[in-house]
Every structure is written in structure tokens, then in C-alpha cells.
């Protein structure tokens, strides 16, 4: 039986445009990068309102979408131009805020457990899972990956990332200094608009 074609819900369109069309760092909001051993790693701030709109469009209740958006979300891109295999395991990554001891990234499974307990739909949870940078990945030469990482820090926090990456069987440590969690104010300023 033929089905009626529905248009894209406006919320989804807005979320996609905000997240993937307007998420570029505005003037003054520069992405952070490291390169070495033929590997390029790049972290880009995602404005909280864009992240919230994206997840709301994927079926997250507004409060949960806002919770994700406030968790210091950075788009992470990894490009393997090393000519050999690459492995990445986020459980080895460490973040450090000022003089405090370094800490691992927040466990992604705890987010998923929380969403389940909060009654977030399976469809939304799957979208969350697949929009994240893979927790463990193996990249062949020439492959690239991108996805979000939730650093779990307060908006505006400055921190240091240490990211071990195994290239051709040998570990290399990417260090990225003075990364800053996106904040609503900064995002609004960079767009010349006001916070909604």
C-alpha cells in the first residue's frame, strides 16, 4: 500500500543545520589540533544550543538534550595518513584541569544507563551512540573518523588532553593544551546573536 510521504520535521532540519552547518568555530573560537606520526587529531567546539537542538530532534526530552549539551561536547576528527594501521582507545585518554590530577573521560556506558533509566527512547539512544566518536577503533591507512566526545566538564573550563594513539604497533601521545569547553555565551557571541 502506498504510504504518504512526510516532510522532514522542522526540528530535525534545524538540528542538522545548527550542528553541522553552523558549528564551525566562529571568529575567535579556534579548533585544537595535533599531528604526528602521520596522524591528525582535531577537536572542534560544538555550541551547546546546537548540540541540544540536534539531540532534541533525535527524540531526546529537552532536559536530557540540555544535559548532553552542557557536558563539554567537542567534535573529534582523526585522520590516518600514516600509511599503516592505527588504533585508538578512549579509555586511555586523559584530561587535566589546571593543577588537578588527570582523569579519564566520563564512561559512555554510564550515560547510556542514565538515558535508559530516564526513559529515553531506544531510537534516541541509538542516535546518541552512533553520533559519538567510537570508544575503540582500528583505522586502516587512509581512513578517517569523526564523532562527538563528551568531556563532562563545566562550560568554559580550560583543560589539557592527552590522547595515546597506536600507530603501526607503536604508541604515540598526542598532547593538546588549553582546550576550552564551549559555553553558551561564547557561542552566542561568535554568531552575533543572543542566547535562546
Amino acid at each position, binding site marked *: 500500500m502506498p504510504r504518504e*510521504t512526510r516532510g*522532514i520535521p522542522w526540528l530535525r532540519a534545524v*538540528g542538522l543545520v545548527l550542528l553541522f552547518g553552523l558549528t564551525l568555530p566562529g*571568529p575567535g573560537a579556534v579548533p585544537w589540533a595535533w599531528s604526528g606520526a602521520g596522524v591528525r587529531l582535531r577537536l572542534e567546539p560544538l555550541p551547546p544550543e546546537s548540540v541540544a537542538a540536534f539531540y532534541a*530532534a533525535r527524540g531526546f526530552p529537552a532536559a536530557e538534550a540540555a544535559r548532553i549539551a552542557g557536558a563539554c561536547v567537542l567534535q573529534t576528527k582523526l585522520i590516518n595518513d600514516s600509511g599503516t594501521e592505527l588504533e585508538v582507545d578512549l579509555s586511555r585518554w586523559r584530561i587535566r584541569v589546571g593543577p588537578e590530577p588527570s582523569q579519564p573521560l566520563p564512561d559512555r556506558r554510564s550515560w547510556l544507563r542514565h538515558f535508559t533509566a530516564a526513559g529515553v527512547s*531506544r531510537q534516541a539512544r541509538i542516535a546518541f551512540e*552512533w553520533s559519538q566518536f*567510537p570508544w575503540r577503533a582500528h583505522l586502516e591507512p587512509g*581512513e578517517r573518523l569523526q564523532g562527538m566526545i563528551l568531556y563532562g566538564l563545566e562550560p568554559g573550563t580550560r583543560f589539557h588532553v592527552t590522547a595515546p594513539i597506536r600507530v603501526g604497533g607503536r604508541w604515540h601521545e598526542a598532547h593538546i593544551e588549553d582546550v576550552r569547553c564551549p559555553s553558551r555565551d561564547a557561542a552566542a557571541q561568535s554568531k552575533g546573536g543572543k542566547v535562546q
Partner: protein
Amino acid sequence: MNAGRRRLLGALAWVVVTGAVAGPLTPVHHRPQAPDFELQGIDDETYRLRDYRGKVVVVNFWATWCPPCRKEMPSMRRAWERWRKHGIELLAVNVGESDDEVFAFAAEYDLKFPVLLDPSGRVVRQWGAIGLPSTFVVSPEGRVVYKATGAREWDSEEIFTLLRELLPKENTKTGRRARGFSRVGSSG
């Protein structure tokens, strides 16, 4: 340069980064057996991978909210128009979305090839995909021979050549002679 123009240039740069092609297809070592699946299509048909044995099958995992997935769909549609004339099949498996959403997307992009639904994400996990889009090429023997993580220009000549090389040899003079030699050899 004003802020708006800078942002526009920045946007274009971002598109280039995410849309860049990371080489044609990555060969899969050891060529593992492709995990079988049985999934519902948006056309209400049931699709089983095992029914495609003897053919080259391109299995694409994607989602409507994934920008690189959206980006590669037009080239996939064009590629399929060519591939199907050569017996190369395409199964596009949506990950975790409702059939209404996927149906609307397929209509918007005018997709004519089979679009399947993996609502729980079980199948995409079985295939070991690490991101979306992820695409796997299955040989006529049912083995995974190539993979692609991220978007590709699927209608490229380079990819078509790789896929065509996997097709069973046609019943040409060369093919008959080769089989003949094989029979002679085995009987001798």
C-alpha cells in the same frame, strides 16, 4: 573580510574536510564470512543476505541524521543505476530509525534501491562498523572483501572497477577454456 564571509569560508572548509574521500575502498584482511541478516525493507519486503549468494553485494549502514550519509546518497543512487545492469546489488541498511522517517528520506532522495531497517542496531554491531556511514562489499562467495568508513563518491570509475573485478567470470571463451582445463586436470 567580514565575519559573515569568514564564517561562510569556514563552512566550506568544513564540508571539504568531512566530505573528502579517504581513498576508494579498504581491502579487508582474511576476507571473513559476511554475517547473515534478515531485515525488513521500507517496501515491506524481507531481505536476507544469503539470498544474494553468487552476486556482489554492497551493504551500506547509514542514518538520516548523519551528514556524510546524506552527502553520499546521491552518488550511491547514481552508482546503483549502473551497478544493477552488471548484477551488483546494493542494500542500504538504516540504523535505528523509524520506518516513517526512513521512508520520507528515501522519497526525498528518490532512492530506488532496497532500503532496509535495523531498528535495534543489532546488525550494524554484528558487522563491526565503527561509525556511520560504513559500507562493506561482499563477494559472490559471501565474504567481506572491502570496507569504507565515511562517505565516498560511489559512482566513481575506480570503485566500479573494483566491484566488477569481483563478479563471477562471464561465460566467455576464456571462461569455458579455463573450466575445461580444470576438468581435464582433475580427471587426470
